């Protein structure tokens, strides 16, 4: 049977220890070595690239032109897809709202907007052929938008809530305080005819009261951001930040009674 001598055993232990040491050293030195060799390797790579660029100049030029053309086509496709994606989100939100709500709704697209600063209206692509009648309420998935004022065969004019000619009976959601909301031709709405002791606070939400029949009860109008006193001192008013951004409405829902 093989029996190692003391000398052989000593040599084996030294050899094994050196192996373990090298193994540990290689682990420990791997990163510093990479770091040290990074710069020379980069230099080599740079020279290689530049030389390749000079040698294959014409091929690269042609390839670059082809790729630029492809990039332009892809950019165009991305833009088109992005628009479709955004439209999809909006329509999904509208559909979700339509499915949630108990009343019948007709979705419509905005064709044009008011031509002057003295009125706030839209023209939509649905009219009497689609069952729309004058006086119907118009909403978006964000809240109340306005009312149908004129109807033609395949278009209708919507007077937006931001127009001062339109008044909507409304309620403060928390206290059930009633008031009349109308537009200011600006970014905010105003709730008028609030009594001196009206229970209303900044941050309260205004909703439609459903009293005039055009709109269902509970459609969000906006949030109270300011409360003030009328010139007469007899009543108060509240400034409302509308839930709907009137300047960028693209699709609306017409409420059928």
């Amino acid at each position: 049977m093989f029996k190692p001598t003391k000398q052989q055993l000593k040599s084996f232990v030294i050899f094994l220890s050196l192996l373990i040491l090298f193994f540990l050293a290689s682990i420990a030195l791997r990163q510093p070595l990479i770091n040290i060799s990074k710069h020379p390797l980069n230099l080599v790579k740079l020279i290689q690239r530049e030389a390749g660029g000079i040698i294959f100049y014409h091929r690269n030029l042609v390839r670059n032109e082809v790729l630029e053309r492809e990039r332009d086509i892809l950019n165009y496709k991305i833009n088109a897809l992005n628009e479709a994606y955004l439209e999809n989100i909006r329509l999904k939100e509208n559909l979700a709202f339509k499915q949630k709500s108990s009343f019948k709704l007709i979705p419509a697209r905005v064709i044009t907007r008011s031509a002057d600063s003295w009125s706030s209206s839209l023209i939509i692509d649905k009219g009497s052929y689609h069952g729309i009648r004058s006086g119907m309420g118009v909403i978006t998935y964000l809240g109340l938008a306005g009312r149908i004022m004129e109807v033609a065969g395949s278009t209708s004019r919507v007077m937006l809530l931001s127009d001062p000619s339109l008044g909507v009976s409304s309620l403060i959601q928390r206290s059930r305080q009633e008031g009349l909301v109308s537009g200011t031709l600006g970014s905010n709405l105003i709730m008028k005819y609030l009594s001196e002791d009206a229970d209303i606070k900044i941050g309260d939400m205004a909703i439609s009261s459903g009293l005039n029949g055009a709109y269902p009860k509970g459609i969000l109008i906006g949030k109270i951001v300011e409360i003030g006193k009328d010139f007469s001192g007899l009543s108060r008013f509240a400034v409302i930040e509308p839930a709907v951004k009137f300047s960028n409405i693209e699709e609306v829902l017409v409420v059928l009674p």
Partner: protein
Amino acid sequence: MRVSRVIILTVILGFLQITILDYFKVFSVKPDLILIAVFCAAIFLDLKPALCVGLLAGIFKDAFTSSALGFNAVLFPIWVFLIATLIRRVSIEDNISRIALLFIVAILNNLISGLALVYSIGSLSWSIFLRITFLASVYTALIFSLILRIIKR
């Protein structure tokens, strides 16, 4: 300036007015590009074609506003007539005078539109009235100066 060019300008400005201009609102007011087109017609064309442009532009604007029907269709030809009459008596050749004249016309136009709105709805806050009257007129005059530069090229 030829009639066809003014008509093309009117059509382009008219379509811009009812489509993308809401995205360029400043303090909730937008410039009146249709009035600019009418003004261009009044200063660059003879009276008859200018009156036609004014009338068509007025009808176009009335179609896309919720104001009383025919309001702008009446007002715009009147502006054309008054501007044309003024130009015949006083020479207005430089751009600054033209911009100043448009600013005055825009203010008067906005005052009349605003008063008509106040009459129809009963009341309107003074701040809103003044904001729209003056800011919209200034905005219109500034845009007109840009359009004049484009026309010059």
